[in-house]
């Protein structure tokens, strides 16, 4: 029985360092290669020794696919390809390929230059790694090798996020990466066709949440920002440079314009300007509305939002600052946070998910005293607000995707175990399919039952279709017969006659002849006629012919009559049939042996 095996090296009952191994039809594929934000030690990266104890990964993997540019999905890529060693193809979409190396470089700088870690990948390694990347277009079917094909679908989570459909023969797996089923201000909704994969591997970050309408959340967000500004406070919004940031910028930009507000909005430097530029160039990956209007007005050219400088943080008066990174675990957002945390007029709005261990996670859990490096503590007096702007599918969205793709099995990753358990129950109940949620390093095996593709001769098929009539009749299934020829790797289904011809074989005729003695005091011709009438009444639905040359033919069985030499009342019937009519022939001979009923004329 063919099997598909799925082993998460990361993101199994957890969020962070997504890395999932899939074995399908003899091919091994790594889906995502991320790092964990919550750890600074070995656990930061997936445990590649699971694949091979020593040596390079190239021999063990057929390809690596990266779903989107978030570091928890691609952060370990240079480590994997350059330090562990992998030279095979790495697939990602164009925007991901463009943005991913920038984020990796950023990540490297923070880790190596600021924290002073050694034994980390270098800039050169990032470049070398990106050289192995093959860009993917949406819906393009890419043939990795003769058997393995992959196809990307729009996932809507961030610019360039993709879901992938992986297919070998008639077995297939879909990996969603992170996705969003509701369109937002800058991206469209995820979409997939009814591809009926054997396994759908889905993220489940918001497995238990059903979020209210986006409009409400947006109104809420704007209200909070507005109130803080009105009372002269400062608003800090920690974001990742690409993704939510652009959505919130569009939101604030239009709000500022409508309300004619004057308070400055800043965006932390460097990356972001560049980031907006990416959005302009990859406009085909954004939503319908932006694509339609971009010639007149490019939504990513902001009028009110200006670049941030470190010194601005101490400026008096209200302001809104978008700063990176999004979980307050390092960098500029953390610096500003430290400066502003003491003032209760200020506010920090966390627009996304925070991984355990980060300051973002701590303050969201209500911690008001934070231990900083060097035994200092920080009193958190400013208001902390959480707003889920993360573009992940909620429970409703996940169910919607299952309905779209109609998978045979479901596998959950990228979520917390408790929440997964709940969703798993719901999925099994609603769709009656198996749902798995393996932990890291645990293998899930799903047996598939693929149909066998065979080439049928068109003659046979057409004959069969013509006989079957235009509509199938479930009560009377028609049986077709043929011969399956297995030669090398080809399977051909042909009619028996054609099979003989193709194989160059001679037909062997097997015939039977049988004599039946019958007491029937009539002339030979009359006896024959009586037999004819008798058979007519018994065999309904068979072709029975009485030929003038003194034979009766039932289908292809020949019956002849002659009188016995000794006794003219004893008739000798000769029945002759071929092996193909064996059942009928055998039936007839036993029927006639019983003699003719008297009532026949």
């Amino acid at each position: 029985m063919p099997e598909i095996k799925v082993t998460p090296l990361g993101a199994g009952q957890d969020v962070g360092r997504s890395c999932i191994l899939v074995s399908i039809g003899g091919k091994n594929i790594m889906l995502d290669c991320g790092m964990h934000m919550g750890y600074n030690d070995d656990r930061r990266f997936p445990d590649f020794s699971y694949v091979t104890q020593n040596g390079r990964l190239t021999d063990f993997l057929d390809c690596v696919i990266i779903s989107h540019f978030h570091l928890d999905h691609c952060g370990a890529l240079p480590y994997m390809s350059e330090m562990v060693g992998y030279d095979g193809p790495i697939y990602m979409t164009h925007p991901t390929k463009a943005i991913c190396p920038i984020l990796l470089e950023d990540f490297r700088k923070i880790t190596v230059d600021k924290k002073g870690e050694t034994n980390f990948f270098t800039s050169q390694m990032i470049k070398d790694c990106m050289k192995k990347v093959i860009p993917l277009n949406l819906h393009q079917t890419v043939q990795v090798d003769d058997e393995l094909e992959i196809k990307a679908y729009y996932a809507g989570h961030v610019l360039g996020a993709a879901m992938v459909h992986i297919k070998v023969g008639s077995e297939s797996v879909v990996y969603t990466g992170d996705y969003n089923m509701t369109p937002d201000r800058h991206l469209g909704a995820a979409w997939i066709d009814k591809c009926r994969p054997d396994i759908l591997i889905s993220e489940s970050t918001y497995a238990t949440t059903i979020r209210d309408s986006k409009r409400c959340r947006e109104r809420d967000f704007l209200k909070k920002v507005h109130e803080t500004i009105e009372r002269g406070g400062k608003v800090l919004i920690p974001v990742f440079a690409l993704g939510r940031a652009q959505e919130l910028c569009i939101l604030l930009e239009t709000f500022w314009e409508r309300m004619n507000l004057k308070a400055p909005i800043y965006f932390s430097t460097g990356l972001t300007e560049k980031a907006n530029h990416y959005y302009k160039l990859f406009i085909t990956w954004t939503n319908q509305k932006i694509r339609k209007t971009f010639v007149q007005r490019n939504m990513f050219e902001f009028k009110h939002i200006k670049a941030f400088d470190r010194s601005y943080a101490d400026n008096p008066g209200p302001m809104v600052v978008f700063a990176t990174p999004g979980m307050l675990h390092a960098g500029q957002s953390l610096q500003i946070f430290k400066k502003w945390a003491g003032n209760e007029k200020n506010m920090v709005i966390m627009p996304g998910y925070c991984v355990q261990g980060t300051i973002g996670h701590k303050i969201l859990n209500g911690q008001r005293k934070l231990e900083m490096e060097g035994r200092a503590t920080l009193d958190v007096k400013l208001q902390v607000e959480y707003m889920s702007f993360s573009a992940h599918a909620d429970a409703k969205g996940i169910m919607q995707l299952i309905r779209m793709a109609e998978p045979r099995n479901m596998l959950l990753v990228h979520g917390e175990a408790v929440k997964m358990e709940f969703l798993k129950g719901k999925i099994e109940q609603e769709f009656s399919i198996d749902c798995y949620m393996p932990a890291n390093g645990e293998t899930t095996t799903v047996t598939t039952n693929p149909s066998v593709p065979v080439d049928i001769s068109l003659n046979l098929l057409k004959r069969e279709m013509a006989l079957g009539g235009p509509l199938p009749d479930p009560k009377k299934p028609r049986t077709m017969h043929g011969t399956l020829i297995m030669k090398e790797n080809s399977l051909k289904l042909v009619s028996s006659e054609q099979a003989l011809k193709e194989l160059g074989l001679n037909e062997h005729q097997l015939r039977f002849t049988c004599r039946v003695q019958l007491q029937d005091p009539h002339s030979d011709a009359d006896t024959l006629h009586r037999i004819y009438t008798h058979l007519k009444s018994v065999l309904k639905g068979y072709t029975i012919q009485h030929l003038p040359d003194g034979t009766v033919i039932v289908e292809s069985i020949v019956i002849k009559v002659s009188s016995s030499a000794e006794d003219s009342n004893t008739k000798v019937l000769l029945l002759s049939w071929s092996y193909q009519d064996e059942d009928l022939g055998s039936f007839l001979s036993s029927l006639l042996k019983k003699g003719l009923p008297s009532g026949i004329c």
Partner: protein
Amino acid sequence: MKLYCLSGHPTLPCNVLKFKSTTIMLDCGLDTTSVLSFLPLPLIHSPRLSKLPGWVSKDGTINLEKRELLDLSTIDVILISNYHCMMALPYITEHTGFTGTVYATEPTLQIGRLLMEELVNFMERVPKAQSATCWKNKEIQRMLPGPLKDAVDVWTWKRCYSMQEVNSALSKVQLVGYSQKVELFGAVQVSPLSSGYSLGSSNWIIQSHHEKVSYVSGSSLLTTHPQPMDQSSLKNSDVLILTGLTQMPTANPDGMLGEFCSNLAMTIRAGGNVLVPCYSSGVIYDLLECLYQFIESANLGTTPFYFISPIANSSLEFSQIFAELCHNKQTKVYLPEPPFPHAELIQTNKLKHYPSIHGDFSSEFRQPCVVFTGHPSLRFGDVVHFMELWGKSNLNTIIFTEPDFSYLDALAPYQPLAMKCVYCPIDTRLNFHQVSKLLKEVQPLHVVCPEQYTQPPVTQSHRSDLMLELQPPPMPYRRCSVLNLPFRRRYERVYILPELANSLVPSEIKPGVSVATLSAVLHSKDNKHTLQSVPKPPPMPPSKKRKRVIEEPPVALAPKPMLSGAVALEAFLATLQKHGITEVKVEETADGHILHLQAEDTLIQLEEDGTHIVCDSEPLRTTLRDLVLRFLQKL
């Protein structure tokens, strides 16, 4: 499998392929050369033009290469290969009962939409008080002067469509990406491949499990802006339909580009203006890129370049967002920088674009300058105005770059003309040399092409290199011909469900060849066929009258298999002996042997290709039957 050819124009093809119960239209190009028979449509009434003899000053109509060869409403899908080949789309999808889907790549759709918008805009800008149709009547046409008299099929000339029709037609387009596999009704799979000619241009593969048709239209091997041509996917085609080769087989695009630049520089230096009548998308990107490098070296830094078209801005903007489909430009986006250098030309104010000559342009217009504007036929659009404006001075130059129209015909109504005229047609499509190399590589079994490609051009009849020479010779088509494509379908794909597959018992017939007899129920749904095990008949209700059972004729569940092989005499005798039949008299005949089982009074005739058992006792007969069957292969 048939091919209906609706257009005789080799670069603006329109063919319909009937393949496995689907009807697929391949491209619908609009041949606009008929506008050359009309007077230019000036913005302001020009007394000079309206007095010209031999020209009709009537509506801008357009030749539609459609014939009632088949019912357009039966078309299931239309595959578009590039934006030039979709201009007739509204004529086909609107008012014909068409209910199918149109497939095109995103750049093709977007730029195609722009070009249609531009065409409609050009036409509607100069509204006609009345339009004449009576002249299309054969009797009247005969009496008309000049070239119109000789025009063929004028009744197929139609008025230009409206914007509403364009929108409706384009709403039927479904976007596809390169190498995306699109299933049509489960019967056929179509897939666009990069063709390297223009942004989003594609060739198409139309295939089922066993047959493959390639449609090559407007392809280029030159390194210009689009993504390079995907050649390898065209391999192993049964039929390759070849259209859209270069219209200028003798003109080298690079040489023409050089000539373009030098003529441009010369005119500007002499204080004249340069007019470039061109389409608003396509080669213009390459011209601008070339000029971007040329401007500084030629010291033209201060000369203004104007691009005037209702869609100038959109065309320039759209070109920047399809970087994924651009050649050599992807890396620029990663920086991130706009892929085409015309963004920089616009930023530095060297290139300015205007929707028309009205408004801002008239106040900002400085001479000498270079103007890119349409339409290349010189019959409508802003170019008409510039012809009137600059035609009288021999300082000015008009440079033709589009190969679609004869420049002499285009210029005819403007004669006498003082302005210099340069003809540098740039056609990057495949030439005959490239195409024969390509065909050698991909090796299709049959090639179908317009008849023009099977003989040298009329004007250069000695150039036998300007035609296709293939073995076997290509099948030529002309307008309105219907070709029977030369391949027979013999196999179709079915799927055997796992349960049935597991129940099969294969037996080896020859080394490496096994056979298994198969009885199954065929299910056909959406053109997909599956074979299922035969459901077991429900158990017979226990019949009380057991006697009657024998009276029931047998229900043939599975017919007996065909037999093959031969029964070896010695081995058979040995088997008989094992079953207690010992008294066997063997008699040799011409074809084999006759075995006489004396005790049982039974004859068995063994021959090379047949066995005949003559036996009166049913139990013995069945035993013998089974013994014989042991020696034979069942199919």
